[in-house]
């Protein structure tokens, strides 16, 4: 390190070797720890080929996952896009695990490797370890082992029950994946390590207590058959329930134990990714801000030469590029750009506040501790709350934001409701934050009632938001999958609070009626 301090660049040109990766990592780690105060899991950096990168892409970025046709489909798609040269591959994939695994591609130049290490192995890594959502919802220590178990278990099921049956089940489970998460924290800390053991114990227990004699015992004469009263019944079934997969796993009448276990696996994977959907802006912002700071510091220390730094700046600018709304390249707000801009803005507010900043952000304006403020942000916010709290008038002006509204079927035109002026700031900020709100992203669908003693028809309710119905084709297909799992009719009502009535109703029958052996 002493030689490095003297200001000789760590590398010149684009070639890299493993020793250089190690030295880059150490140099970056020093800046990250001492200057930015990042707190990370230990790093594991894996060098992979383009094909392996595509592979990781298609299995949702996981190093190992069970087999399913949809992953093959995604692979084919990515491969095609990549072959045509329409899109370069991502430079890295990082996995929220302990140790934190970052994949870097062999094709990257030395500068890109430095960028990737700063971005993934420090930026994302710090975020994973510290953000409250990840701490609450994911178990970084257990995930790899759990995925290994899941892969083995599903392969075993395929052997035992046939590929086709398992595939059907996974199709159905995947369709409901977005509604297979608990949205409110559990009392228990997630512990994926013991999942494997628990599954085995459950099975062994069942095998041990199984005795065919029980079957011959006469049942209680209809004492338990008496109709439970409404509220008691709902309470027993934990209704209403928005985690549909959980409900099916626990309650569906016709599923075999292995089917329940597979639903559970899909549910666990969905839950693991739940925080990622809510933290795109802040997570990518954090990583982008970190790599920008780290690379700049390395350059200032003379560890990266000017040529490499320019190469870095080129890719950095590409990453944080935000086209304007009337640009043909516009496809929504770029989370990298927004996150990075907001975090730079926080740094500015801490170091060089204006009067306006002092009024809007009294707690951090002029604190002169930008990294402290940012670490607080990274630990305690998600996209929605981050935007709601920290989008500054300065940035709204810089991006020239405006709010465009479609006021429903009756209005003939779109209306500009607010722009970046004194009257519009709060409105803009509230609306943008709302776009990142989970309850806005996923439609609110809950299991509301089922009469297990009666016709077993499952009743679901979609609480419409702003009068928007579900996409009909998609909803029908998902409901078909749901009905197949449930085994009886399924009814989904789309409920509009404003009209106080049901706007639309879908009823779907299972493809294989219950009662027949599936």
């Amino acid at each position, binding site marked *: 390190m002493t030689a490095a301090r003297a200001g000789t660049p760590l590398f010149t040109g684009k070639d890299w070797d493993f020793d250089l990766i190690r030295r880059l990592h150490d140099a970056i780690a020093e800046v990250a720890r001492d200057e930015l105060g990042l707190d990370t899991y230990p790093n594991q950096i894996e060098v*992979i080929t383009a094909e392996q990168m595509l592979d990781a892409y298609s299995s949702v970025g996981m190093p190992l996952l069970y087999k399913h046709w949809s*992953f093959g489909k995604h692979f084919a798609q990515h*491969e095609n896009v990549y072959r045509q040269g329409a899109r370069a591959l991502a430079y890295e994939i990082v996995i929220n695990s302990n140790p934190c695994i970052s994949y870097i591609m062999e094709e990257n130049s030395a500068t890109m490797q430095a960028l990737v290490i700063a971005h993934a192995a420090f930026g994302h890594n710090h975020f994973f370890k510290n953000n409250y959502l990840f701490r609450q919802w994911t178990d970084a220590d257990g995930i790899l082992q759990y995925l290994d178990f899941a892969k083995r278990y599903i392969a075993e099921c395929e052997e035992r029950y046939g590929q086709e049956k398992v595939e059907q089940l996974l199709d159905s489970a995947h369709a409901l994946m977005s509604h297979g998460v608990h949205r409110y924290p559990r009392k228990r800390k997630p512990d994926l390590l013991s999942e494997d053991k628990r599954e085995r114990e459950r099975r062994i227990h069942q095998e041990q207590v199984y005795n065919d004699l029980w079957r011959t015992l006469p049942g209680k004469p209809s004492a338990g058959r008496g109709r439970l009263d409404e509220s008691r019944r709902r309470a027993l079934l934990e209704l209403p329930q928005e985690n549909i997969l959980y409900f099916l796993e626990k309650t569906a009448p016709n599923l075999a134990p292995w089917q329940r276990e597979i639903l559970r696996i899909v549910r666990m994977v969905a839950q693991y990714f739940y925080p990622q959907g809510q933290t795109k802006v802040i997570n990518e912002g954090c990583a982008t801000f970190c790599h920008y700071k780290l690379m700049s510091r390395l350059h200032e220390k003379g560890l990266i030469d000017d040529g490499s730094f320019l190469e870095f700046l080129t890719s950095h600018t590409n990453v944080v590029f935000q086209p*304007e709304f009337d640009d043909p390249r*516009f496809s929504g707000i770029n989370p990298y750009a927004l996150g990075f801009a907001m975090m730079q803005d926080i740094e500015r507010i801490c170091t060089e506040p204006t009067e306006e900043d002092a009024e809007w952000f009294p707690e951090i304006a002029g604190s002169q501790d930008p990294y402290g403020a940012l670490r607080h942000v990274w630990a305690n916010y998600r996209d929605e709350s981050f935007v709601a709290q920290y989008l500054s008038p300065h940035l709204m002006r810089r991006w020239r934001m405006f*709010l465009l*509204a479609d006021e429903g079927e009756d209005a003939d035109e779109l209306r*500009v409701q607010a722009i970046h002026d004194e009257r519009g700031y709060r409105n803009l900020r509230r609306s943008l934050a709302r776009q990142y709100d989970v309850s806005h992203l996923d439609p609110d669908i809950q299991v509301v009632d089922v009469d297990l003693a009666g016709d077993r028809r499952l009743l679901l309710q979609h609480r419409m938001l702003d009068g928007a119905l579900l996409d009909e*084709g998609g909803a029908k297909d998902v409901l078909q999958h749901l009905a197949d799992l449930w085994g009886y009719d399924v009814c989904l009502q789309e409920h509009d609070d404003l009209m106080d009535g049901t706007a639309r109703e879908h009823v779907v029958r299972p493809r294989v009626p219950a009662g027949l052996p599936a």
Partner: protein
Amino acid sequence: MHIIDRRLNPGGKNFANRQRFLRRAKAAVRQAVRESSEQRGIKELDQGGEISIPRDSIREPRFGRASSGGQRQAVLPGNKKFVPGDTLPKDGGGGGGSGSEGSPDGGGQDAFSFVLSQEEYLDLFFEDLELPNMAKRALAVADSVSLQRAGYSVSGSPANLAVARTMRNSLSRRLALRRPKAEEVERLKQEIEALEAEEDEPALDQAKAALAALLTRTRRIPYVDPMDLRFRRFEAVPKPVSQAVMFCLMDTSASMTEHMKDLAKRFFALLYLFLKRRYQHVEVVFIRHTHLAEEVDEDTFFHARETGGTVVSSALEAMHRIAAERYRLEDWNIYGAQASDGDNAPSDAEQTLSLLRGAVLPLCQYFAYLEVGRDEESTIGFMPHSTELWRTYEKAGAGGERFAMCKVGKRTDIYPVFRKLFERRTEGAAAP
């Protein structure tokens, strides 16, 4: 911090998923492959390539909001001239007013495109097709046998001696019978030498007797005994004939238009590809005929033009002759494909029929006759008349399962006709 080099890990981790995907989308992929084959030239027919299938067949449905309806808001960057209260027309309006989600696969196109490898392409292309009478009838011909390892035997030629196995037997026998070791003998000899030096007579005698006993025992128990010998055993396995020859017969008289030749060429190309997938080695013989038949190379076959009458039997004769000269029935699977517009000299009908029945069909695993028509002539619907050759062959076709005939008029019909000719037969018909 660890750095791990994963580049050398076995690739193709996604192979199983890809197979599942192809199986899943099979119907759609098959359709796409067949459609794409119509647009391809003959040369590129056997290459893999990009195909598109409708997205519907591989949808992964999710609950999502409809892309229109209801009240929607969006915060957009890049305001240039708007003030609150401004209105924009609903269609277009740059970015629209909705935070509409794209299709779950991104891109939002209706077609899903991806690349098939050559192997996958041909697999789908020739799916469900089968060569009738794949195996030679007389399999157990002495010439076409191959030797296959089949364990060990106690007798055999020295060249086949299984040394390791023999030595193993020898070793265990020597141990079991306690054959004196060479070191033991050596040690005793040294001892005798020492004793001779010491001139210790009684001990010397004793040692000499012991040595003599050891040597006798060594002689009696040989190092390698004939009973240790093991030889690699081979079994003669009848070898399926895995080479085929394809005879392409075509009428090249002036009545054959370029269009007809193109049809014929496509048919031959398909057949060639198909044979190539089934046999290790495929040869092609091109025979063109007018009133005279001759063997030519591919280029001449398809492009040269001739004048003259049409005598089909001349081509059959040539085929018979060439087969007899060059392609022994025991070694070759012989396939015949004939394309013609159906003309034949009326006087030749009798000769053609008897040649086909008596000489050609007994040679062939399968003989297909393709009658090519003009583009405007529809193959379905009203048939003006059946041609001379068609009528002749109809008599031959009756009852013979080695023979098939078809008519084709349009380029797009080639593949269906080909399928029809080579469709997998039901069990009853397939048995030779």
